[in-house]
């Protein structure tokens, strides 16, 4: 592949909140520094909001909702299509900003993050035009009619691993369903959404989409706790998920939660029956743990491989992992960039250490990656493979880094037992040439998404969400619309006669 080196984007000196259709300074005038994990330097300042700013956003959202709730499906659909067009026209600009903000390589932000943002806005623009309600004639004189209505003003708390894409997953269905939205981006990665609002803000009626920056305990908490919010959507970890549900319970608010996983990636014996293109795909599938530096809720962080093919298969997986090119994240040849923050960097290293203390064997990696020059102060970790057993903590906890734990199995039953021995149930991978296995095994895995002979594909139109402690709700699909809507049932009588009770 020929090299393209993207320019490092230049940002404004500071970004305020986006409330009521314009950028506004935080009420108390405080900002916080944003650093880029690519080299640890400060790149801009962002509003450090508190409950006063949240109240302003709630005022704007409620004012807008009075008219937005009557917007036509056509109006909302066209707006989402225009947003998608502008994102597409600024595809590389937004990708470079996402790389600067999050640290991931430009090849991923171009081909995954921003490409999927465009597709998700178009998908939700499309499905609402095709949707219809339902009418049932219950008897000769009685008709039941179901009409979908938006829930109102919704709060969305966005993670830092795919800052723009996770925002799009939540914003697109909420707006498509007719809600007004207040988004709290992650404090590590607040820039992309601000730049997006600079580009598309004029397409959206003032107050319909509001962005409030700041820290979780200062801005996220009053937003999640507010009695003026009608629904809360959250992607993150389990303790904060529980805390948000506690707040929501005070308001009897519905919530959707996506709380991570420890996804098994299972390689059956038949994958090595031939040395062909499919085997090559399987090896890449095992190395997918390094996508996005492993900072993915569905990171295939447990490789389960049949013991008969372990040596031959893992030899290829290790070789492919060692070939992962790290370097300047703005270079299209760089395969893996920086971890998103210093605390993540240190946490990942502590897991590599505890894994080895528990007796796991280090097959490759296991240390920070030393980059040259400008990027020597960034947070880079070598892709790491540990061999052990499923009771080890590195097999049970989401490390959220480029670290995979591999173990073997003898039978399909044992593979399933290991795969399901986890608190989580978000993703899983099954790789086989056997047509029975590729149906029966995924059905027996307790996870919301099972990739069969593929991994890490996130097309709109295929629902995504968790079983068990991974949460609930199904994103990237029209199913998500109903998480942002009420069902209005009109039960109509065409009978002129009294019942005769009174």
């Amino acid at each position, binding site marked *: 592949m020929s090299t393209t080196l993207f320019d490092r984007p230049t940002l404004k000196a500071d970004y305020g909140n986006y409330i009521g259709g314009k950028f506004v300074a935080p009420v108390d005038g405080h900002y*916080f520094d944003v*650093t880029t994990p690519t080299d640890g330097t400060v790149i801009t300042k962002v509003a*450090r909001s508190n409950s006063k700013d949240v109240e302003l956003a709630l005022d704007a959202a409620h004012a807008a909702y009075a008219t937005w709730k009557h917007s036509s499906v056509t109006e909302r659909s066209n707006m989402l299509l225009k947003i998608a067009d502008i994102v597409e026209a600024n595809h590389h600009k937004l990708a470079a900003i996402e790389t600067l903000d999050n640290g991931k390589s430009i090849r991923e932000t171009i081909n995954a993050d921003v490409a999927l943002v465009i597709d998700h806005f178009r998908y939700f623009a499309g499905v609402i035009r095709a949707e219809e309600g339902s009418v049932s004639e219950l008897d000769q004189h009685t008709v039941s009619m179901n009409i979908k209505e938006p829930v109102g003003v919704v709060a969305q708390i966005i*993670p*830092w*691993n795919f800052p723009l894409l996770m925002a799009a997953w939540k914003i697109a269905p909420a707006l498509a369903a007719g809600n007004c939205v207040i988004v709290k981006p*992650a*404090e*590590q990665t607040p820039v992309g959404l601000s730049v997006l609002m600079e580009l598309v803000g004029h397409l959206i009626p003032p107050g319909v989409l509001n962005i409030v920056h700041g*820290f*979780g*305990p*200062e801005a*996220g*908490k009053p937003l999640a706790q507010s009695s003026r919010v009608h629904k809360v959507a959250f*992607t*993150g*970890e*389990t*303790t*904060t*998920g*529980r*805390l*948000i549900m*506690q707040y929501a319970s005070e308001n009897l608010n519905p919530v959707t939660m*996506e*709380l*991570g*996983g420890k996804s098994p990636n299972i390689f059956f014996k038949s994958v090595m029956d031939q040395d062909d293109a499919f085997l090559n795909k399987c090896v890449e599938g095992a190395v997918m743990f390094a996508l996005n530096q492993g*900072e993915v*809720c569905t990171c295939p962080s447990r490789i389960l491989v049949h013991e008969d093919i372990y040596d031959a298969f893992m030899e290829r997986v290790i070789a492919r992992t060692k070939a992962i090119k790290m370097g300047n994240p703005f270079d299209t040849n760089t395969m893996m960039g920086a971890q998103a*923050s*210093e*605390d*993540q*960097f*240190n*946490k990942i290293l*502590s*897991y590599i250490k*505890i894994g080895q*203390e*528990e007796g796991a064997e280090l097959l490759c990696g296991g240390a920070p990656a030393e980059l040259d020059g400008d990027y020597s102060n960034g947070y880079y970790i070598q892709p790491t493979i540990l061999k052990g057993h499923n*009771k080890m*903590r590195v097999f*049970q*906890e*989401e*490390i*959220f880094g480029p670290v995979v734990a591999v173990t073997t199995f003898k039978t399909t039953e044992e593979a399933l037992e290991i795969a399901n021995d986890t*608190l*989580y149930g978000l993703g899983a991978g099954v790789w086989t040439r056997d047509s029975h296995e590729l149906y029966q095994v995924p059905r027996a895995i307790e996870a919301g998404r099972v990739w069969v002979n593929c991994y890490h594909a996130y097309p709109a139109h295929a629902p995504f969400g968790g079983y068990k*402690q*991974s949460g609930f709700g199904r994103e990237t699909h029209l199913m998500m619309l109903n998480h942002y809507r009420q069902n209005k049932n009109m039960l109509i009588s065409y009978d002129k006669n009294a019942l005769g009770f009174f």
Partner: protein
Amino acid sequence: MNPRVAFTPEAKALMDELRAFHGPIMFHQSGGCCDGSSPMCFALDDFKIGQVDVYLGDVDGAPFYMSSSQFEYWKHTHLTLDVTPGRGSSFSIEIPTGKRFMIHSRIFTDQEMAELPEPPQGKQH
């Protein structure tokens, strides 16, 4: 002394800084996505402890809890509460300081495991 969770001087200094502003504090060990696997710090009782949580003891006077399902996979490890620079996410109250609580772990010896009592479940503070 808490046999399951220790703390570093840096952790104590950050806890003191937070207590000066928030009053008494507590910890709940998280799991899952993003900032999962990090300990979360809250003003005491801001996070509701349930019967599913186990109490691992106090850390410099602050109660430390973890969900019992997660504890099943953690119970053979000794934890040390420490601090790292970095902009964590989540609702943990130290986030605005630019520092983040983190956990270092080591494996208990067989003798330590034999002497450790089972931690109680539910709210203990």
